[in-house]
């Protein structure tokens, strides 16, 4: 059997940044998995978002399921510029707190379907959530840009690793 789940690239922020981009993603895998451990310069809602292929046209959608320690809720955005993909710990959390997101880009390189993105976000100090997003494009995803809620900076120490999974 062929081994897979291969690291493609890792980025660790040595200084605050407005965005993080993985570019020139090879089309040789079946799915991509992004694991992000992030903190952002936002005291309130501290979600993180992505723009596949750098496209910020307001044509994307996402649906989420969220628990905040008190209640569960579900919400949605449509015709959005970005797709929500998880959580970044905000500045209201203790220094050194980061949140984790695991993001699946399903069949990202095919050129016949729109792209579906499945995510799990875990911000232990605030919320846990699951998200499904739609990138309405039949183009292969060759780059992914990650931003913070409200386009605030992503803070130093945040890490991002992109893996490729190849089906037989």
């Amino acid at each position, binding site marked *: 059997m062929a081994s897979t789940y291969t690291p493609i690239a890792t980025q660790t922020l040595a200084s605050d940044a407005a965005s993080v981009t993985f570019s020139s993603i090879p089309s040789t895998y079946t799915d991509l998995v992004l694991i992000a451990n992030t903190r952002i310069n936002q005291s309130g809602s501290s979600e993180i978002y992505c723009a596949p292929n750098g496209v910020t046209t307001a044509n994307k959608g996402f649906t989420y399921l969220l628990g905040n320690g008190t209640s569960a809720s579900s919400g*949605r955005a449509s015709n959005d510029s970005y797709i929500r993909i998880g959580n970044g710990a905000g500045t209201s959390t203790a220094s050194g707190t980061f949140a984790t997101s695991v993001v699946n880009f399903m069949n990202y390189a095919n050129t016949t379907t729109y792209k*579906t993105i*499945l995510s799990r976000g875990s911000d232990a100090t605030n919320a846990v959530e699951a998200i499904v997003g739609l990138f309405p494009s039949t183009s292969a995803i060759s780059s992914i840009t990650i931003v913070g809620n409200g386009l605030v900076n992503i803070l130093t120490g945040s890490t991002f690793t992109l893996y490729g999974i190849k089906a037989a």
Partner: protein
Amino acid sequence: MWWAQLLNNVVALLDSGVPASTTAYESIATVTVGAGGSSSIAFTSIPSTYKHLQVRWLARGAASAGSDVISLAVNGDSGANYSFHRLYGDGSSVTANGYASQTYIIGGDMPAATAGANMFAGGVMDILDYANTSKYKTTRLLDGRDQNGSGFIWFNSGLWQNTNAVTSLTFTAQNGNYAQYTQFALYGVKG
């Protein structure tokens, strides 16, 4: 010399604590639905050499409806030997429910023929300790479809009340065929 460079690379990897190769996750088989569609997708003769299985899919139904449901049968068992729980959101409310004595494990849902073109559901299902012959088998699933204004996100757990090793998995579209380009991929995770 090439062998000296190779040796140096291996030593560097070992020194850094990074494994020289990632061999714990392997592709076992993949099914892609062709133009004629298919009512079910089966993985058979699954080797027992892994610790866990993972199935990843991008799926759409061909039934004349807005959506269709994916169901899973293990080892061809069509008896009422399954149960499952679901927690899901539809963009405005959250629902939790559970079902006992079922003839399948639910695998989430997917857009179907009257949904917007090119829209597919994504799913990632884990089948844990699948080859163990002293446990009932448990599955967990993250599945969802967003259609830019509608959609669902699902957390599901499933139980197959049987201690046999899992050797086959059959994913059926309950109300029709899977549409062209639907793809299910089976992976093995070593222990």
